């Protein structure tokens, strides 16, 4: 089984090296897609042994994932893992998330930070919970976490899920696609570390409104 780890990155020079090294302890096919960073993200990623694709313009995380997933498929990936570049995830948990897909029990696995008792800042929790209710109302999927970058999909899921949202609304879109394509899915608990760095880098809360706007008008 060829497992590819796809990491979208935008200005993550400070942490991308560590993230790649952690993942490399377990997997060797790591694809970093640099979304037009203005720092040395691509150079750092290359030095640490990742395959690097670079967007010459900043296109947003959805577009970046699309580039990475298409590339991994072209390289013959059987399983594609999407993973965040900001160091919030535990590389040791990739295995656990891949297992149901390897065993062909599921087409897509979605990581959930709410299933594992993570400490999540209150306001963040409130916004994420609203997003979950919104998604549930629209897709009927009972998920506990819809905006999580940690996912595993098999080739069939990766080929059929069409990410059209260039920016952050792609996360909801993947869930919608899962419902539309009737993919076999499961949520598994993952650890999310809210470090000072990731909190600073991560989504601002106003992001939720941008996502809602994109979903309604695009």
């Amino acid at each position, binding site marked *: 089984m060829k497992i590819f780890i796809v990491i979208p990155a935008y200005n993550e020079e400070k942490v991308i090296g560590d993230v790649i090294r952690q993942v490399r302890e377990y997997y060797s096919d790591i694809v970093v*897609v640099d979304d037009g960073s203005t720092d040395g993200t691509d150079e750092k990623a290359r030095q640490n042994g990742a*395959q*690097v*694709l*670079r*967007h*010459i*313009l900043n*296109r947003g995380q959805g*577009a970046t994932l*699309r*580039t990475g997933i*298409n*590339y991994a498929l*072209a390289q013959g990936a059987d399983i594609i893992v999407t993973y965040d570049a900001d160091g919030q995830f535990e590389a040791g948990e990739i295995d656990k998330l891949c297992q149901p897909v390897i065993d062909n029990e599921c087409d897509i696995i979605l990581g959930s930070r709410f299933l594992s008792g993570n400490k999540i800042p209150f306001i963040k929790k409130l916004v994420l919970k609203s997003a979950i209710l919104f998604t549930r109302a629209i897709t009927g999927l009972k998920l506990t976490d819809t905006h999580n970058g940690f996912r595993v999909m098999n080739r069939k899921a990766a080929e059929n899920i069409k990410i*059209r949202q*260039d920016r952050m609304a792609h996360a909801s879109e993947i869930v919608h696609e899962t419902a539309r394509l009737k993919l076999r899915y499961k949520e598994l608990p993952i650890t999310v570390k809210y470090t000072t760095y990731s909190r600073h880098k991560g989504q601002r809360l106003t992001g939720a409104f941008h996502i809602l706007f994109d979903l309604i008008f*695009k």
Partner: protein
Amino acid sequence: MLIQYLLLIIIVFILLQTARKFKARKISLREFLFWTIFWLMVFAVVLLPQITSFLAEKLGVGRGADLVVYASLIFVFYMIFRLFVRQEKVERDIGKIVEEIAKKDKDNS
């Protein structure tokens, strides 16, 4: 009235501008005809405002000026919609180009 002369002069300028853009091949023949007809219609309405009063009466709108405002609003919103759709397509095209370049650069490195 003075306002009529002012508007007519402005419209003539816009028509000339449209023709110039067409001559320089910045807009297509279809676009040129569309805008020329549109501005000629505006020209006619400014020159003979009675036209709108006549139409307004037929349609049951109070005043000619009101009819013009309604029609203009619909037109403007429709144009915004068209631009919105167009913009989306441009975004998608840029996305495709950026992805292709990323793949090409990867293959060459």
